């Protein structure tokens, strides 16, 4: 039996095979849309670049060469150099690392937090919901960047603090989303059936409600990644995120700002990277929406 036949088998012999078949069908659906493929390839590309940075970067991103500052693109410096004569290509490649780190950490911290708050609020209703949702409202009412700024100002600048600041402002929408989904799921017959079958509440929440809330949250998180990259870049730009000499795209744009008219590439190169990164995550999110939408299952 070929792998394909095993995967699309209508009568799977084990739970494992059924699971793989589900993933396989999703993957095939994703591959039908060119923009999704572009999103997947770009995001994978960024991840690969981050992993292979020492080999791709050619030179140390922090090696200064005052004699060769602000040079345009050349055979030696593919994308030119910045105000301290550092190789922009190298800094761009190494810049994927803090950016991805921030994106991944924010996603890993804020999505579970939003899910827990949202699902509990939606499932239990009543005063639990009222309390949790008012807290969510409070956090939602703050302008995102301003709250992050205040937070970083208190804790001091740095990548970890930037992540915390962004997380604190990022989770409320996920809580809202999960709550809405849970409200609809809570009254469905399969939840009633599970309750009648005597399945304990925590198992219903984890095994029955959560799996149905995850797709929409994953989609939303992926779409928000673009925003997170921009916020991280914004914090970097304001000098509150990654600290010099660490190569970070936002900080690089900020540094290039002074030379934007004469040596435009210093700001444009990391700017284009930010643009591409956000676009890739956006397209991936769109594609995931098509794949994970239960209506297509």
């Amino acid at each position, binding site marked *: 039996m070929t792998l394909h036949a095993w995967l699309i088998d209508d*009568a*799977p012999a084990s739970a494992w*095979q059924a699971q793989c078949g589900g993933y396989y069908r999703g993957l095939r659906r994703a591959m039908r849309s060119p923009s999704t493929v572009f999103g997947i390839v770009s995001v994978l590309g960024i991840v690969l670049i981050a992993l292979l940075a020492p080999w791709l970067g050619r030179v140390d991103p922090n090696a200064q060469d005052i004699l060769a500052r602000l040079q345009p693109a050349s055979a030696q410096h593919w994308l030119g150099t910045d105000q301290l004569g550092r190789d922009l290509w190298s800094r761009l490649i190494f810049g994927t690392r803090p950016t991805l780190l921030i994106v991944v950490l924010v996603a890993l911290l804020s999505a579970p937090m939003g899910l827990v708050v949202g699902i509990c609020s939606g499932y239990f209703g009543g005063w639990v919901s009222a309390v949790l949702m008012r807290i969510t409202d409070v956090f939602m009412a703050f302008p995102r960047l301003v709250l992050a700024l205040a937070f970083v100002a208190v804790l001091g600048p740095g990548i970890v603090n930037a992540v915390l600041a962004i997380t604190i402002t990022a989770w409320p929408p996920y809580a809202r989303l999960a709550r809405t989904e849970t409200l609809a799921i809570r009254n469905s017959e*399969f939840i009633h059936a599970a309750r*009648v*079958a*005597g399945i304990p509440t925590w198992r219903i929440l984890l095994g029955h409600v959560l799996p149905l809330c995850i797709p929409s949250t994953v989609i939303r998180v992926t779409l928000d990644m673009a925003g997170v990259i921009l916020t991280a870049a914004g914090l970097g730009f304001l000098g509150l995120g990654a600290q010099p000499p660490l190569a970070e795209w936002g900080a690089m744009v900020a540094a290039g700002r002074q030379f934007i008219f004469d040596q435009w590439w210093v700001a444009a190169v990391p700017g284009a990277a930010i643009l591409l990164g956000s676009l890739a995550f956006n397209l991936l999110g769109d594609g995931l929406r098509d794949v994970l939408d239960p209506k297509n*299952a």
Partner: protein
Amino acid sequence: MDDALLTVSHLDVFYKRGRESFQAVRDVSFEVQDGETFGLIGGSGCGKSTILLVLSGLDGHWRGEIVLDGVVRKDGQRASAGHSTQLQMVFQDPYGSLHPRHTVDRTLSEPMRVRGLEHVEQRVLEVLEHVGLDSRFRFRYPHQLSGGQRQRVAIARALVLQPKLLLLDEPTSALDASVQAEILNLLMDLKKQLGTTYLFVSHDLGVIGHLCDRVAVMQQGSLVETLAPENLVELRGTHPYTIELFQNSQYA
């Protein structure tokens, strides 16, 4: 009568919508004998499904007394942990009553696993066979099943815990006539094999007449009369609503 499996006395159920309170069920009393098929019939919104929700423990806003197999519940009291082995329910919509992301195997085995029962795998295969599905269906997802197959899985889930009483909430009204016939035959076969007591809710007089020993007619939250088998066979009601219901059923 002392061999009643289920006794419901003076059941009132309330719903709150905003500040208004609405009484869905009014002073309903009936008994279901061990081993019989008891029907509840009535138009939409008459409270028949609400009674099932209360019996299954999904609804807490009620007053009255429910005695199921000797266990007494009063005035909105929650069901105890052993409740689910006494009573199980099959829902109306085969498309909505199975978790879309759980395989048939998980749907059937989870109620047993949470109870720490043994030989789960063997039992899953056994129940699947009972409901006429072979083992090829075991690891399928609901979207790979037809409506009739889903309802068979739902019946299998209700049977894994070997309940004494099975609540059936219009289990065939969302199915095509030919599939309905298959499910009704299955329910009759299972009854012969397992001796489970059925409480069958429906608006379809044909289904009720085919399956039930006794039937209670409901109108706007109240139980207007209970028909004995001989009256059911001849569609002979005494209450005006029953007579009207029987007449209408022949015109629709």
